[in-house]
């Protein structure tokens, strides 16, 4: 059970997102309408502090639990892939007010609606898998 720490981290992350209202439909609505600073503060703050961590990873000041250097995965390149894929995700995010991690968290708040959202997302990932070789990069 060496991975039990990920379970605890999941609980922690869910509480953080829930308590900062970063799972609320309203918070994302006002973010995309640029009517509040709250979500920009949450995400922007997370990015800025993570940048410092990334530098510490890069120069080996922080190593992982096994003493190995931490190297974040390189994201797949491709102008169409990232921009079009990102736009699809943004559409779903903007309408439902949920991004990937919150879908699981919302199950604890609104079980049945979140299950519909969850199955939709699963189906979406499945469709991507079927089409992956045919889609432009």
């Amino acid at each position, binding site marked *: 059970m060496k991975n039990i720490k990920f379970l605890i981290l999941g609980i922690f992350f869910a509480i953080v997102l829930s308590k900062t209202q970063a799972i609320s439909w309203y918070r994302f609505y006002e973010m995309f309408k640029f009517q509040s600073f709250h979500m920009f503060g949450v995400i922007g703050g997370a990015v800025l*502090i993570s940048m410092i961590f990334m530098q510490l990873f890069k120069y080996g000041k922080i190593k992982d639990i096994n003493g190995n250097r931490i190297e974040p995965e390189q994201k797949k390149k491709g102008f169409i892939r990232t921009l079009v894929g990102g736009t699809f995700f943004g559409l*779903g*995010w903007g309408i439902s007010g949920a991004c990937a991690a919150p879908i699981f968290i919302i199950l604890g708040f609104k079980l049945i609606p979140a299950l519909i959202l969850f*199955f939709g997302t699963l189906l*979406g*990932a499945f469709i991507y898998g079927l089409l992956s070789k045919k889609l432009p990069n």
Partner: protein
Amino acid sequence: MDIILQPWPWYVGGPLIAISLLLYFYFGQNFGASKNFETLCTIAGAGKVSDYFKKDWKERDFALLFVIGLIIGGFISAVYLIPNQDIDLNSTTVQELIDLGFSNVGRQYFPDEIFGEEVFFSLKGFLILLISGLFIGFGTRYAGGCTSGHAITGLSSLQLPSLLAVIGFFIGGIIATWFIIPMLF
């Protein structure tokens, strides 16, 4: 106890999200959430239909535990940690949503118009959630990440694909909130 039960401000949330990322990497894995939907497809047997899903999901058992943690954490938050779901919204936002016909704006995390009982009885309510999910699943996998993987991990490690993806997130989110939501309600 009071501090825990109050809503947490952005300057508490941002650092705690960064610490979650730090721990995820410290535990030896790459931070992200959306790939789990792919893993769940594999577990559900999608490998029989497409080679894309022929992967060993046991390599991602840690991520599934993270997901189970998210669900447990959601229940704990909903039941014990948020006695009051009021959200301090901009008055412009509130008025806009009232004009669109939303009720109890900002009195709970999730509006009844999208997450209420209606979804059991109306095809429209059901389709709004299902199709949103479809876009999230398809879009995150095509783009190669979501808010965690691209916006936080990717931007903070200065990756260009993540910047493009985040621009896409905002194009989609702006179209959704400025144009699609007013058409739906």
